[in-house]
């Protein structure tokens, strides 16, 4: 793989950084720029970009980590299904530690041993083909980036007439969540650093509503520190010039129209439904569900489990506010001492891409 070092040349970064400093002096007020992608959050932490910013520029992290936003009852349902006879649960590794209402997959694995980490839904499908006497459930989470792969897996399963493969569908869509944040009363977001990978699939048009309805500039950003710094610079320029547009900084990967094939297959396999986001609540039209013709693969149809809704607030956890960009982990009384990666209370600590986890790893005071 080439072009790792090339994108990390300190000279270039320093030049853009100087420009950011210059621009920041022209700002009339403090600005809050939100990234909506866990990988951006991690890069910002890993390279100390937050600390690099002039005082009047505040980088905040939105609901961009798919693991973090999966609600407790998703984990509870998965655990209930894992107790059924002849079931194997397959999941992305990040989900193992996510706390449900009472337990986590990691703890349940130690009891029953029927929970396995896979790196792709296709691996889960392969396990199904090799274990015909078992029902294989794949915990399907992720944003627009993951959805095409899951859709493709479902199509393959249907073609091959595989009867013992199911998904527990918790997939979510990013733009409705961004709009939801802006519709909140006391929102104070001045610009979005839009997720690069999601945009590879959906293209640039879904963000137009944000710029037009709310007068907020959007920059689609890549994942090198260089990309993020440049995106911040573009956002500042647009704010100063009061230009509210969608700008594609990640042109080397993101096409204006997105990935048409991927979009088509998502439409083919999934319907758009309302969906619950941990810490935020139900967001209209922000989730995916298998279409009727694929419902044979829906784990919730195969196993009817009754999960009681526990709406108890997790002991002063402010993940909800953090996901909305209203607070930072430093505002939380649990952060570090009580809530840490070994003992995560809220979702933002669970995933390595969660805001609290990124702060814990890279920005602890």
């Amino acid at each position, binding site marked *: *793989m080439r072009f*790792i070092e090339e994108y*990390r040349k*300190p000279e270039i*970064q*320093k030049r853009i950084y100087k420009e950011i400093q210059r621009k920041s002096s022209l700002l009339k007020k403090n600005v809050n720029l939100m990234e909506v992608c866990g*990988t951006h959050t991690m890069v910002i*932490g*890993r*390279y*100390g*970009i937050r*600390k*690099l910013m002039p005082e009047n520029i505040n980088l905040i992290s939105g609901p961009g980590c798919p693991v973090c936003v999966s609600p407790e009852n998703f984990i509870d349902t998965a655990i209930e299904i894992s107790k059924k006879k002849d079931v194997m649960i397959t999941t992305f*590794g990040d989900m193992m530690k996510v706390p449900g209402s*009472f*337990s986590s997959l*990691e*703890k349940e*694995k*130690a*009891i029953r041993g029927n929970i396995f980490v896979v*790196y792709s839904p296709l*691996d889960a499908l392969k396990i199904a083909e090799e274990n015909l006497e078992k029902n294989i459930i794949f915990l399907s989470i992720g944003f627009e980036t993951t959805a095409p792969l899951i859709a493709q897996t479902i199509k393959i399963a249907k073609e091959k007439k595989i009867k013992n493969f199911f998904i527990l569908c918790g997939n979510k869509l990013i733009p409705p969540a961004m709009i939801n944040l802006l519709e909140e009363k006391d929102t104070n977001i001045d610009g979005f650093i839009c997720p690069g990978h999601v945009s590879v699939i959906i293209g640039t048009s879904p963000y137009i509503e944000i710029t037009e309805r709310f007068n907020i500039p959007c920059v689609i950003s890549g994942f090198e*520190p260089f990309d993020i710094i440049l995106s911040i610079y573009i956002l500042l320029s647009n704010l100063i010039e009061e230009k509210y547009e969608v700008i594609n900084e990640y042109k080397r990967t993101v096409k204006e129209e997105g990935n048409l094939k991927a979009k088509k297959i998502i439409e083919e396999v999934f319907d758009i439904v309302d969906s619950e986001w941990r810490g935020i609540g139900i967001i209209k039209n922000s989730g995916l569900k298998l279409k009727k013709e694929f419902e044979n693969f829906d784990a919730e149809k195969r196993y009817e489990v009754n999960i009681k809704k526990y709406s108890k607030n997790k002991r002063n956890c402010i993940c909800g506010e953090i996901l909305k960009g209203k607070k930072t982990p430093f505002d939380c009384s649990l952060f570090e001492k009580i809530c840490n*990666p*070994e003992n995560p209370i809220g979702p933002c600590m669970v995933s390595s891409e969660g805001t609290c986890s990124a702060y*814990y*790893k*890279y*920005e*602890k005071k």
Partner: protein
Amino acid sequence: MKKNKIILSHGSGGKLMYALIENIFLKNFKNEILEKLYDSAIIEFKEFDLCFTTDSYTVNPIFFPGGDIGKLAVCGTINDLSVSGAIPFYISSSFIIEEGLDISILERIVISMKKMAERSKIKIVTGDTKVVEKGKIDKIFINTSGIGIKKKNVKLSIDRIEENDVVIINGEIAEHGLAVLLSRNTFNIDSDIKSDCAPLNELINLLLEKPEGIKFMRDPTRGGLSSTLNEIVKNSNFGIVIYEDKIPIKKEVLSICEILGFDPLNIANEGKVIIICGKKESEWILKKMRENKYGKRAQIIGEVIKEPKGKVIMETKLGTTRIIEMSLGEEFPRIC
């Protein structure tokens, strides 16, 4: 769910494992030798110190690029003794074998152990064999223990570390963990990465000619560089700064870490040693290290600093700093 169970993270060299050691093992076995929690127990005699260590190996797969479970078992124990400042002499080897394993596979492993022992001039002098029913373990597990002799003039202790001491590593990082992980074929990535698994006694013996400047040594195995450095600064009155652009790492390793989203600082090594030594002596130490096969790429990667106490920080290539946490490590079970 009131009863706590052992989960995989308890064995991963991270914080959960330290909690287990403290709350279960140390609490019950407590004595003045164990409580130091060094790589080897150090038993003091009048003329010399006896170093004694043990380790079990469960790596999956048992053969991987650059090594196998047998080579790992011999090198691991040699290295635990060597970083304690001892010259290793004798090793034991116990085998727990799954019913149904090909005897030819067992012999391949044993021959690999023999070669390593010969090359490192140590003897395997005692052992044990147990066979368990098929399915009760995965192929073969090996335990090795070892003893070595440490001269009285070798004084390695975290207490001797002072501000401005330097941090040296003998070569490129993150190769063992990545080689084992990739050899499981989960990711379908072809690579030439080999485990760095190697015996370090020869390299370290060279340095023990003049041991005065060497304050402390440890091998950054499970949990990688980040865990080892954090173990060193934990509970101490100094911190460590490392420089991103000084840490030796192969391009290919860096690329694969990028693709898979791993931090190379958290990935295991099996042929690396971290040395903390006085600045004055570092030049001689580096020169000596570079004379040895396993020290050619030796490099100063950081320094001991006064503040922040008890923390490891890294100066990034961007010129910013970030905190390096102890790795949680549970992403890859059974790499050693």
